């Protein structure tokens, strides 16, 4: 087990679906050869097919302590990158610019489609990245020992020298957050912006987020926002806890989506989205989390101060991010069992 564990909490009530995080990550890390189709960070509409398509349904993770690998997603599941016919349209005159090939799937193919409940449309955005799991299935699956979890901060990385491109990690990851670089013959994934963290700078996806919905810090640092949200207030949950990988990216579930005529009613008594769907994503504990958040909302609406909601507002960087200096990492006293 790592001495410390970096973690991220994302408040889904604040996500605009603007993809600024996606582009911040893309520009910084995945604009090289063989990386066109990869988005280490993506934002998908839920309910929806996700990226890669149906990643949540194909398998992966552990079952009774045993790896349960899935098939490797196909190129079409990820959505093929395509070029536009600029030459033909812009410089020779003509109709609108179109992709050279008619696309059949893209990473954000069903954006804002969602689903219907009681005749009304609902959806929310789910930003996703590598979960830097405490029990990573990718690491367990690699016969080369190319994956490792950093002892000092729990970030999961792929040793590009050891990796032979076997892709057992891709089969094992239940979140399908490992990608194969065809040009290099190597697997690649989110590195939790460790070079930035080592300089005291927060992850690019968090830094650029206009919705200020990301909180970053050590999950075992009692002074961190992530520690408070996950361990003390207990208002954030990991995706698919039953997969057994113990993800370290947590989500504050959407608990109060607006709908005409529901003023003052709890989402539990008047669900604007099927709670079954939230249970599917986050496990049954999500109902308790929503109850806690509803109670905090009522507290705030009745004129009292809610520390939870004040923290979730995340007014500035200092509130949302607690990035210790590398040399002070060893001095932080873990508070694992609080």
């Amino acid at each position, binding site marked *: 087990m790592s001495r410390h564990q970096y973690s991220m909490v994302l408040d889904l009530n604040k996500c605009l679906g603007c993809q600024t995080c996606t582009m911040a990550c893309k520009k910084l890390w995945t604009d090289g050869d063989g990386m066109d189709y990869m988005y280490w960070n993506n934002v998908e509409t839920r309910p929806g097919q996700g990226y890669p398509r149906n990643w949540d349904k194909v398998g992966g993770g552990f079952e009774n302590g*045993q*790896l349960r690998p899935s098939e490797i997603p196909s*190129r079409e599941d990820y959505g093929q990158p395509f070029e536009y016919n600029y030459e033909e349209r812009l410089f020779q005159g003509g109709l609108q610019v179109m992709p050279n090939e008619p696309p059949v799937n893209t990473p954000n193919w069903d954006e804002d489609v969602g689903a219907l409940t009681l005749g009304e449309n609902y959806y929310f955005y789910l930003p996703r990245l590598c979960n830097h799991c405490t029990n990573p299935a990718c690491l367990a699956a690699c016969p080369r020992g190319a994956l490792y979890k950093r002892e000092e901060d729990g970030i999961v990385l792929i040793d590009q020298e050891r990796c032979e*491109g*076997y*892709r057992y990690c891709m089969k094992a990851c239940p979140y399908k957050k490992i990608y*194969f670089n*065809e040009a290099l*013959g190597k697997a690649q994934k989110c590195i939790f912006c460790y070079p930035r963290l080592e300089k005291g700078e927060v992850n690019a996806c968090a830094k650029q987020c206009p919705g200020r919905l990301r909180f970053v810090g050590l999950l075992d640092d009692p002074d961190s926002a992530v520690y408070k949200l996950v361990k003390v207030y207990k208002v954030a949950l990991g995706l698919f806890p039953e997969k057994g990988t113990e993800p370290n990216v947590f989500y504050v579930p959407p608990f109060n989506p607006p709908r005409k005529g529901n003023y003052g009613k709890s989402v539990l008594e008047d669900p604007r989205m099927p709670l079954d769907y939230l249970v599917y994503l986050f496990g049954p504990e999500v109902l308790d989390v929503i109850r806690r958040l509803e109670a905090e909302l009522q507290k705030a609406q009745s004129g009292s101060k809610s520390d939870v909601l004040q923290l979730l507002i995340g007014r500035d960087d200092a509130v949302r991010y607690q990035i210790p200096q590398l040399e002070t990492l060893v001095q932080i006293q873990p508070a694992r069992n609080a």
Partner: protein
Amino acid sequence: MTGLLLLAAVALDPNAGVWKAAPPTTVALHRTPPLYSTDPPAALEIAAVEVKLLREGGKTMARLEWRDASAEKTAGAPDGFADGVALMVPAKPVTGDLNPSLQMGDAAHPVLIYYYDAARGAALMEAAGRGTTRRTKERFPAQAAYEGGKWVVTMELPELAPGAPYSLAVWNGRQQDRDGRKYFSIWQRTP
């Protein structure tokens, strides 16, 4: 030009006439067991490799030929894997009937693996037990051709004396073979 250079230059061509006279040995292949209990056992699509060896000037030229219904020459899409073949020999001379472990040797009996991958070409690898295989920086002369449903790969190796152990592995990209998911032979002795 020495005999070796002449032979090597000629014999690296999989269709060179010098191979016609070389006596063939048929080496049977087996599948490794599935790595995960959820993986279905893979079909035995490739039954054997036909091996021909020529020696001259301190070198051994090897010609490996096997039937494969489809050629996978790139590790293309995220779920695509390339065909490949490897010839494993002990890194240190062996005595008597002793062979290194088939699972990449062991600490006392390291092995060298002459590996040809249709996507990345030839690479010399070394290992001293399962999970220790690593690429050396060295490459070796090799050529490959796929024609009429058959792969032929030629390799220039250090001399394998008569009676020297070697074993083979074949990866069938169509069956998503890579790493320990492959075809393998038991140890053979060179003629």
